[in-house]
Every structure is written in C-alpha cells, then in structure tokens.
C-alpha cells in the first residue's frame, strides 16, 4: 500500500485534495481565443462590460497558448487554417479543454464547400459544442459554465498521461 496506490483509490484526504484542486482549476479558466471570423466578434463581446466574463475568472485572454487551458475556436476553420489550429492546440500544456463555438466549427455550418472543414472534431478532441450563428454571448457563458462543471468533477487519476515523478515506495514485507 504505497502513496501511488493511495492516489488511485478514493480515500478521505485524497478526495478533499482533488476537490480543492478541481475547485481552483475551474474558477480560473484562462481561455485562448482562437478568433477566426464572425464568432470572434461575439467572443469579444463576452469580454465587454455588458456580458462580463471577468466574473467567471476568465478575463485573462492570453494570446499565447503556453499560458492557457481552454481553447475557444470561434469562426470557420478552413483546410488551410486547420494545420495552424492543430499546432496551437499541441502547444497548450495539459490539462486542456476545447469549446467549439458556433455552427461552423461544430459541423461546417452554412458553408458546404470545398475549402471548409465540416466540423473541427475531425482533427481536435472537443468538449463542448455551442450552437448558434453566431451564438449570443449568453450562450457562450453557458458553455463556459458547462466546462466549469466538467472540470469540477475531475479527479487526479483522470490525468494519467501526466508524468508524475517516480516516488520512492516502501513496501511492507
């Protein structure tokens, strides 16, 4: 019975630790605005004084992927742009989540043509889809709250692919 095994099972201290970490993660989600076209304007409107996103802890919209944990893909993704979006997603550190904002990112939207990717889930794992063309800012805040609920339910063992440094375990005989 070592510390590593204890982390994987539910004990009292570990669940409390999990709850605190999840609470602090969900209340300070820093979005990475991947603003490509019209939905980016509604994303800017979410930041303005009327539909304040600062009250959710997310007013820090850093444009560098290294400091963010939520990527909001807002706007039509074309084949030419998809490589750029994937590159930026790969540069974000774990744990990370993705919101597909608007109809264009969910399914290709009203653009059924030769150059538009019909849904970004063909190359990115998406957590929340937001409907609308463009979705109202209240709708985007609803999606943010859904992501917060999703983060609030995570446990440490959900992030298995994170490299935890090897702990020295003392085995009883």
């Amino acid at each position, binding site marked *: 019975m070592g510390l590593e095994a204890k982390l994987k099972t539910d004990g009292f201290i570990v669940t409390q630790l999990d709850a605190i970490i999840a609470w602090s993660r969900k209340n300070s989600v820093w979005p990475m605005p991947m603003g490509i076209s019209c939905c980016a304007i509604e994303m800017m409107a979410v930041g303005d004084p009327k539909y304040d996103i600062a009250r959710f802890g997310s007013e820090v919209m850093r444009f560098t992927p290294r400091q963010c944990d939520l990527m909001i893909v807002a706007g039509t993704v074309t*084949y030419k742009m998809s*490589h750029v979006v994937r590159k930026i997603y790969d540069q974000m550190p774990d744990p990370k989540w993705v919101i597909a904002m608007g109809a264009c990112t969910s399914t290709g939207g009203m653009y059924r*043509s030769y*150059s538009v*990717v019909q849904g970004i889930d063909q190359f*990115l*794992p998406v957590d929340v889809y937001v409907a609308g063309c463009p979705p109202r800012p209240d709708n985007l805040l609803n999606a943010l709250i859904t992501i917060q609920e999703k983060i609030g339910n995570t446990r440490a063992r959900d992030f298995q692919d994170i490299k935890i440094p090897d702990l020295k375990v003392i085995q009883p005989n």
Partner: protein
Amino acid sequence: MNIKELIKNKLTNNFPNYQIEFSEYLDEFCIKVNKENILEICSFLKNDEDLKFILSEDITAVDWATRKNRFTVVYHIYSLKNNFRLKIKSDVDESDCSIDSVTSVWGAANWQERECYDMYGIIFNHHPDLRRMYMPEEFEYYPLRKDFPLMGIPGSLPLPKK
C-alpha cells in the same frame, strides 16, 4: 458630347485596325476587344488626357462552359475625372489559356489577376509574381471552373491527424 460618344470616337480613331465592339445594357457601357490588343487599349485608356481611367476596380473571368471561347476576362475600370465606369471584355479560349497582364498599367491588377489565376487557371503573361492567392500552393485544381464540384475533390486538401 457625352462620355460614351467620346470613348467611341477616340477608340475608333486611334485604333482603326482593331476589332472593337461596343454595347450597352442597363446604362452600363461595355467594350469587347481581342486578347492580343488588350495591353495597348488599356494603356491608352489610362493615359489619354480626356479619359484618364486611373482606378482599376476589378478583374475577373466568366466561365461559359462552351467548347469555343470558354472564358471571358472582364475588367472594370473607373475614371474619377469623368465619374464614369467602363467594362472591358476579352475572350480567352481553353486551348490557349493565357492573356497579357495589365500590371504595368495599373498596380492594382497585381493581386486581382493573381486571384483570377487561382480561381480559373488563366495565365497572365509577364505578370511579376503569378502564384496562387487563396488556395494552398500545392492545390492542383482551379475551383471556380464549372467542372469542379462544390464539395471539392476528396483528398485534394490535407488535414492534420487527430
């Protein structure tokens, strides 16, 4: 004398050997020339003191999907002095899909002709920088031709792996 008469007279006087057709539809004046003469006529229209068509608004092409004279290249130019807009058309056949570039006359034609090349595949001779505008360089087809399907050719554009 109104501007349309002026253009007609000047063009017929200065280029008597060239074949120029004049037409008008819904108050829009249009001339049709052969593609070999396009550069001369365009530089005349720009540099002449009374006409002065200095603003090139748009260069595009129409694909008629016929056997002969499949494309028509259309130039929209505007004269600030006379407040008049003129349309110039020129037929291009599919077998010899090229026409002279007017970049030396109007600098705006640079990107406008590049876009026309990207969408239709019409080569502009002596263009300083003819490469694709919107589609990636490795794309092999010309999207706005009538035989290119709306949904595209599967596999022609690569997608990153999940």
